[in-house]
């Protein structure tokens, strides 16, 4: 892990491999949409985001994270896991290419190719941002409040705006710098 953030605390894993917390189903149902939304913003793909969500909930299920802290923990875990997928090039087997374009509003092959290339560029740009900036950016744009982002990243609420602002500026510059030539 690039930075030591709260979701990756060693003491958060408190259960053996065959022991699953009893509140897992409720937390899953309450938080699944948010976790997928976070991962989808990093990966640009709902299918891949759902794979990441499954991975994150599996880790959560064996953790001792209090249920009241589950949502920020899961959110930041989803962002990190998705960013790690980009970095390692980990992909779902078999259907990644087939999954694009999922969006039925993309009507033809040319537009689909452009959309896919755009997703690739955004993913690459995100992976070049400092990890904390990338995570803060994704969490904020997934709908977390400044207070929630602060709790998830273990930073002061007053610093969230600065981190997000710098991340957005950096993202724009990264995408412009690597923009495809006309």
């Amino acid at each position, binding site marked *: 892990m690039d930075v030591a953030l709260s979701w990756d605390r060693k003491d958060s894993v408190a259960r053996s491999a065959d022991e699953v917390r009893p509140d897992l189903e409720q937390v899953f*149902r309450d938080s*699944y949409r948010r976790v997928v939304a976070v991962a989808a913003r990093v990966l640009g793909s709902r*299918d891949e985001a759902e794979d990441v969500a499954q991975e994150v909930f599996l880790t959560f299920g064996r953790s001792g994270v209090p249920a009241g802290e589950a949502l920020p923990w899961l959110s930041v875990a989803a962002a990190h896991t998705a960013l790690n997928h980009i970095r390692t090039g980990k992909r779902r087997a078999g*259907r990644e290419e087939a999954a694009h374009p999922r969006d039925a509003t993309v009507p033809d092959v040319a537009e689909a190719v452009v959309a896919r290339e755009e997703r690739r560029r955004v993913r690459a*740009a995100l992976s070049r941002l400092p990890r904390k900036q990338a995570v803060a*950016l994704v969490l904020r744009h997934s709908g977390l409040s400044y207070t929630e982002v602060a709790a998830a990243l273990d930073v002061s609420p007053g610093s969230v*705006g*600065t981190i997000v602002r710098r991340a957005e500026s950096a*993202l724009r510059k990264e995408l412009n710098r690597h923009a495809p030539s006309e």
Partner: protein
Amino acid sequence: MRHPSEGVLRRLVDEPAGVTDTDREHVADCPACRDGLADARRDAEFAANALYAEADVNPDVAWLTFADKSVHSAARARTYRRWATKRTPLVAGLAALVLLAGAGTAAATDWLQIFRTEKIAPVPVRQADLMAIPDLSSWGDVEITERPKIHPVAGRAAAEKETGLALPDVTELPRGVTGDPQYQAGQRITATFTFRAGKVRAFAADAPPMPAGLDGSKFRLTAGPGAAAVWSSNQGVPSLIVARAVAPTAYSTGVPFATARDYLLSLSGLPAEVANQLRSFSADGRTLPLHVMPEKLTSKPADVNGRPATVLSSTDQVLAAVVWVDDGRVTLVAGSLSPGEVLTVARGLK
């Protein structure tokens, strides 16, 4: 006076209530800060567009997948028992339907009913085979527009009023099941699957040719609503559940269901004998194949007051269920009971 920081300007974009009055007033009067705010707003909008992703997901369906394949085997029995007893045949039946055709919304008016569940038949498909099946989005567009939204309700009357279904009475509770039940209701689920030849070709270059008329054809499936009475236990899982739901029904815009089904099965990579089994079960458009993983469940035929039924038992012997269809309604009795006990409850329902 000092200018507010770039972080404060950024927060003004989407959480102005989190910024002090002093800073807000300064920005309103300061051209430099207004420019900074405009820059922040522009970058925020740019990032929002760049990061936009479609992420409409169904936690109920995702939970089934998660509980099924991700939880370690030692804990899986407990987890599986929890969802299996809560979900009612509405969802269990849906899993089989999704395997065959997909499901969603229907604005079209020319739907032709092609399938109405009148009986249920178990189809054993091993987990490894099931995992090898790509999801339907590889072959077309899947849209789920009505979701079951299973939720607790105040009582039996509320469950029946919401669903329009009469819940049967349990004449005698099995030993160990005590107290009053809690009631749940679930709304109808509707989904549409649209075949897309382009997606099929993109997914598998060697796919067999699509039958005439199949490209772009739509299949709508509905199931539910459903209601359930749930007796809890001190283990935190239901000790008994009696559920009833409107049986699944499928509609087509014209292509015979068998044509779509056979083509899907030719693509799925299922073992040939399983595919043949699925074809034969639904050939009459009346039998709903209920997917059973032999690693987890065994099934056997039974009789509930003259109606053919299927008894399911978990291989760890912690769960048993009996399910049958009568007059377009699926009824399920399940719990942390023996097969004999659930059958006794089922046969005693009034």
